[in-house]
């Protein structure tokens, strides 16, 4: 908790300025503001605007991490300006000056204001962000299992600030990537038992070359999100449902790669890279695998010449999985339901008690029993083929 008793002190902000309409290049402005250390970077920016330069562009409203308007990068890290304390920002600064920039991956309208419509909202609309109810509707209220709704609460915590979109490393090289915020939103409906189009939603996002399989698993969105949505984890849930529950074999090799990997470890214990590569493209005989190998031929030749990979390792994997590894695969894969543990929902065991007492009811409204909540594993795989 921030100490609110400390007196006001000076903080220097280095603010990125840019007005595309002016024709001038972007530049940095420095302003020294005076505030208590527990106050926010947003309050600092507003003081700089009020005292020194009324032309600084910043979008904000609630100042309480609820409206999601003031997404910026502070010392290179995306987040909410109103949710970042000045003392914390000073600590993470490189040279004692707090650097404030507009978010990335979106065009700049002016200074710290980016064009959310051009990127973020367009991508959100892309995933049909509303419930597609069953037809006919139930006569009375729609009764759903509690666990299923608890499962989607994490994605419902999103306030559409765009911080995850800003820092997404896949989008940095592939601007068409649907992206973390929109995919997390997609899971909100894929995970909702009232939605009637779960299979179609998953099929759509699995087949899109810039869809759920375009995520590189870099954790950047998890770091950026001020509300704990962990968009990457929601993307992994989408993949689990697409591949595991609905067996959607997509054209992007997402399904193939996951299943090749699982098969590979079950058989070898350690990864056999060569098999994994070809199997990920649908097996040695598939044209896609042949094309990839042909393109990679110069690289493979070089690796062999340098004795980086020997033919023995490349073709005949010397390692075989111990029988207990195979047994674990059989036991876990043979369960009727997937057992997922979402720490966002269950929380952590109390450290102090030292006792082996699970604390699984840590979510608001939860906690009537001591059962760990499996995240409604494959709650309704209706479209399963």
């Amino acid at each position: 908790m921030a100490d609110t008793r400390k007196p006001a002190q000076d903080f220097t902000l280095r603010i990125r300025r840019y007005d595309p309409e002016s024709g001038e290049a972007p530049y940095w402005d420095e302003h020294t503001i005076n505030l208590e250390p527990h106050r926010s970077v947003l309050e600092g920016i507003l003081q700089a605007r009020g005292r020194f330069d009324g032309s600084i562009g910043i979008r904000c409203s609630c100042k309480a991490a609820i409206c999601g308007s003031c997404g910026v990068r502070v010392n290179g890290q995306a987040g909410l300006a109103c949710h970042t304390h000045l003392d914390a920002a000073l600590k993470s600064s490189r040279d004692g000056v707090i650097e404030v920039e507009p978010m990335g991956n979106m065009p700049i309208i002016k200074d710290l204001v980016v064009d959310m419509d051009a990127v973020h909202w367009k991508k959100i609309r892309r995933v049909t962000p509303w419930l597609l109810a069953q037809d006919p509707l139930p006569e009375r209220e729609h009764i759903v299992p509690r666990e299923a709704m608890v499962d989607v609460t994490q994605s419902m915590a999103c306030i559409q600030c765009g911080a995850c979109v800003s820092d997404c490393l896949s989008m940095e090289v592939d601007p068409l990537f649907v992206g973390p915020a929109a995919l997390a939103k997609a899971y909100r409906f894929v995970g909702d038992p009232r939605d009637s189009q779960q299979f179609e939603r998953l099929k759509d996002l699995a087949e899109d070359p810039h869809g759920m399989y375009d995520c590189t698993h870099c954790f950047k969105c998890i770091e950026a999100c001020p509300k704990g949505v962990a968009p990457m984890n929601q993307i992994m849930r989408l993949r689990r449902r697409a591949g595991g529950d609905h067996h959607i074999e997509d054209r992007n090799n997402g399904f193939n790669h996951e299943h090749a990997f699982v098969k590979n470890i079950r058989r070898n214990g350690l990864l056999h890279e060569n098999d994994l590569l070809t199997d990920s493209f649908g097996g040695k005989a598939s044209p896609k695998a042949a094309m990839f190998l042909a393109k990679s031929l110069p690289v493979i030749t070089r690796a062999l010449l340098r004795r980086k990979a020997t033919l023995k390792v490349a073709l005949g994997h010397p390692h075989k999985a111990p029988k207990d590894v195979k047994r674990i695969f059989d036991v876990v894969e043979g369960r009727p339901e997937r057992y997922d543990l979402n720490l966002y929902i269950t929380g952590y065991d109390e450290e102090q008690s030292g006792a082996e007492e699970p604390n699984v009811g840590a979510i608001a409204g939860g906690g009537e029993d001591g059962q760990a909540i499996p995240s409604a594993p494959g709650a309704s795989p209706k479209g399963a083929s």
Partner: protein
Amino acid sequence: MKVAYWPGCVSRGFTPELHGSVAAVAPLLGIELVELDRACCTGAGVLAEHSQELADTLNGRTFALAQKEMANGAELMMNICSTCQGAQSESQERLDANAEYRAHVNETLAPEGLTYEKGISNKNFLWLLVEEIGLEKLSSLVERPLTDLKVGPFYGCYIVRPADRIQITDERPRDTYLALVIEALGGTVIEYAGSHKCCGFPIITMNTDASLKQAGMHLGDAADADADCLVTPCPLCHLNLDLQQPLAEKVVGRPLEMPVLHLPQLVGLALGLSPKELGLARHVVKPTSVIDWTTTVVAGVGAQDEETVTGSSVAGEK
């Protein structure tokens, strides 16, 4: 110190020079390696994507195997792969957080006579260097300081994010350790945009272009910042940055020629090992700048040794 050693898959597959260089460097650092040869792949995030319980059970098994070694005098568990560290930390987070879940996983392990006890200490070689051996001690072991060698750190995602799981704190700024180690070895740290970004490897089969674009962009940024080479604690990053570099060059449309070293190789060079012993001749991108440095810049130190080695191995490869 004795450690329960998890080498991972890739260090025994497509980057054998990594496994070899750890074996060469460990005795110089006073590390005794007890290899966990019955353990299996961490899942690299993909198994967890398929089934969390499967990944957690397999990693729980590895932890339990390591804890057996720890009962026999190993101080902790060590890995040499950022991705292993991340996948294992993720499983450990869930296993340590919830006693009921842990009991459930242990039930599956029971027929093998294994049990995972909460709270294993599992550290990447990079963390072990800084936190167990210490930078001062490391500096004191340097035989051949990396003077004038400009090294760009490349961490790999799994070892720096998410910060709370990786336990990056004020006391343990683990997202700066590579820079600290490069400095301790006498080298110059190059700052560039890509040091903490993703190499792109996880989507190489799903979106090859985007994957290679990421690798090419970071290598290019490092080249523009005047780096002689990159160093990484992640063999998967090494695959995309080194093995795939000729293809990345085509995607980004510029020559890169950026050597990428495994962390133990860089440490080994400074500790006086020869490039050949460290498997440097096995890289796809020849580490010419690094080899030149070992022969010319500090010609006075162990020069004879270097000349024979580079003469026979690296030059001989041409």
